[in-house]
């Protein structure tokens, strides 16, 4: 669909020729019909080319057709024939009336035709705008919006279009997209584009400013308070200008693009603000974590070590042993904190790489139970893993980390001596691993948030923790394409489960 500047003036000769020819044809037909028709009827025949010219070719050819009709009728039909003399006053009257009727009808018909043409153009413009808005709305970054805008305008005016955006770093303008081929911007054009950028007004031939010899037009893409980009447009031929319709259309298109760009920019800023708030929260939590969660074990270690370093032998061997166990356990706790913090930083920064290998959950659970021995001390642990659990593709060490975190939570938030169980089962196309504890059941509203970063349950704030463990678990499991969730245990307590997809178990090779 194209809106072009081709009105009837573009093809004048053809149109006028058509007016002359059709009048001539009517004359021939009229002459042939003279024996059968009255002169009054023949004059009506001459209205036909007038009307058709008015509708098809516009006012000029219609007027020409009217005058030619009068002359031809007079010459060929009104006695005395083959002269322009008029013998009868009645015939003179008929000629005058015919001329008036022809002029009036052609004027009305031309007006009608113009209205129709405008309606069609309006419809085309609306359609183009609709198409553009539909395409632009689907774009998620500003460059894509500009590219779509450029393509659409280039297509509609069949010319060359390019867009310049300000480069904030060095104060220049960069061409981000162009369509229609050809280099649009020279040194001088950049200067004009900068002017358009600064003043937010269009420039080019017929637009008031910078009427250069080349027909190049600049339109600002205006956001709420500043110009976002500058659109450069060159029609196909160098001397062509833009019709008011085209100009209007380009302006409508750029306005629409500007609205979308502003929306995208706002969304981006909101995202950035959210990110900043989160990273600020992260820093704050890290500081809190370092000052509290690291200092607490350090305090125990320092206390125990300085006691052991006392010169006087005041402690029994049992007490000394207790001090040493404290030091060991607290050092391990600190190491777990460091591991979790590192994992979180990797998840946050997107540098966490999954080392996907075939893993047996039984194997992972075995490693975890060895590792978590001192965390679980006091809690009887039940393990339920059927022997036929299929293998899963996963990062062994990260899944191990998830299980350690879940077990640490289970032990931390339930009374000593209460049982903790680990079970693995197949559900549909997934392997589900569940850790069940007998701790105080999490309330419904809190259940929704336990996997959020830094979230700590109000009722459990007295137990030290960073609020990171479960969010790390979630991050790791989701990176595997699995799910992690929590539900109340059927008895008393909580259940935390995660699922991993069974993706085509390898067949076990026969013994060689």
């Amino acid at each position: 669909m194209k809106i072009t500047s081709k009105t009837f003036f573009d093809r004048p000769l053809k149109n006028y020729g058509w007016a002359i020819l059709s009048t001539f044809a009517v004359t021939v037909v009229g002459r042939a019909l003279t024996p059968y028709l009255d002169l009054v009827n023949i004059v009506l025949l001459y209205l036909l080319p007038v009307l058709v010219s008015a509708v098809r070719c516009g006012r000029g050819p219609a007027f020409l057709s009217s005058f030619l009709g009068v002359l031809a009728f007079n010459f060929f039909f009104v006695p005395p024939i083959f002269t322009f003399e008029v013998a009868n006053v009645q015939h003179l009257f008929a000629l005058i009336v015919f001329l008036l009727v022809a002029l009036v009808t052609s004027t009305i018909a031309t007006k009608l035709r113009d209205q129709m043409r405008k309606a069609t153009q309006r419809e085309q413009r609306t359609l183009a705008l609709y198409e553009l808005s539909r395409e632009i709305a689907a774009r998620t970054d500003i460059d894509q919006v500009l590219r779509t805008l450029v393509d659409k305008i280039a297509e509609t005016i069949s010319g060359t279009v390019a867009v310049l955006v300000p480069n904030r770093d060095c104060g220049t303008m960069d061409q981000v997209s162009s369509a229609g081929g050809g280099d649009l911007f020279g040194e001088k054009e950049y200067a004009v584009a900068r002017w358009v950028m600064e003043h937010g007004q269009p420039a080019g031939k017929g637009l008031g400013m910078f009427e250069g010899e080349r027909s190049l037009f600049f339109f600002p893409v205006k956001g709420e308070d500043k110009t976002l980009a500058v659109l450069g447009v060159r029609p196909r031929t160098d001397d062509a200008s833009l019709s008011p319709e085209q100009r209007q259309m380009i302006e409508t298109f750029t306005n629409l693009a500007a609205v979308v760009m502003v929306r995208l920019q706002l969304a981006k800023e909101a995202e950035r603000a959210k990110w900043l708030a989160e990273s600020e929260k992260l820093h704050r939590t890290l500081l809190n974590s370092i000052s509290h969660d690291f200092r607490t074990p350090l305090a125990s270690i320092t206390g125990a070590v300085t006691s052991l370093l006392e010169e006087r032998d005041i402690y029994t061997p049992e007490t000394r042993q207790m001090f040493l166990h404290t030091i060991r356990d607290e050092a391990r706790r600190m190491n777990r904190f460091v591991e979790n913090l590192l994992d979180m930083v990797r998840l946050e920064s997107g540098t966490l790489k999954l080392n996907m290998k075939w893993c047996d959950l039984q194997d992972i659970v075995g490693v975890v139970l060895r590792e978590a021995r001192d965390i679980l001390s006091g809690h009887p642990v039940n393990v339920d893993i059927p022997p036929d659990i299929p293998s899963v593709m996963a990062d062994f060490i990260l899944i191990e980390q998830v299980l350690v975190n879940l077990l640490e939570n289970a032990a931390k938030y339930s009374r000593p001596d209460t049982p903790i169980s680990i079970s693995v089962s197949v559900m549909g196309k997934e392997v589900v691993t569940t850790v069940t504890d007998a701790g105080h059941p999490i309330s419904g509203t809190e259940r929704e948030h336990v996997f959020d970063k830094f979230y700590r349950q109000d009722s459990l704030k007295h137990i030290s923790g960073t609020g990171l463990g479960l969010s790390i678990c979630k991050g790791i499991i989701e990176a595997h394409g699995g799910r992690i969730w929590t539900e109340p245990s059927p008895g008393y307590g909580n259940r935390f489960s995660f699922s991993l997809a069974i993706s085509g178990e390898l067949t076990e090779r026969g013994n060689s």
Partner: protein
Amino acid sequence: MSAGGARILVVDDEKQIRRMLKAALEGYGYDIAEAASGQEGLSQTSIFHPDVVILDLGLPDMDGIWVIERLREWTQVPIVVLSVREHEDDKIKALDAGADDYVTKPFSMGELLARLRAALRRINRSEDEPVLAFGDLSIDLAHRSVTLKGEEVKLTPTEYEVLKYLAQKAGRVVTHRQLLLAIWGSNYQEQSQYLRVYIGQLRRKIEADPSQPVYIITEPGVGYRLVTRD
């Protein structure tokens, strides 16, 4: 514990770690020499003739992996890596370069001592002793038979080879690649899923609870280790 005055070279740039290791290991009767850099470690190895080298990977002058490669050009002295690098790739790289074992910092002294003993055993004991015993589990290499609590365990030939290989390197970590290379040959170096399957089958035959194995334990992402209780 008779260490028989075995000589240990500690290569670590952290003075605190060296001091602590020296005190602790001398307490166990070992003879200790120290080196603070890779270069010093290389030259000390040829002067001091250690029975085991404890090597940190993050050295100021060169990467520990490079030190392992240089040492392996001329000596088979056991090398136990002691490093803060916990990523499995680093462990595999060190082990495949010729290190005998890997201990991650922070470490427990008990664990390090066990690794050192396993490494020393390699030079003291020939690898083709006729019967290898680990608690209730014993492997008779001459008769290719395995018994658990005196009862014979039926193993397939491949299961037996896997167990035998682990047993001959008992106490030391064996990487997936080393095991695959020894048992399946060079075409199967990347096929660690075979191993996973055979280890699973072996555990079902020799472990009381395959979820909490006591003989063959998994070194996550690296390989397996047959545990010795000494």
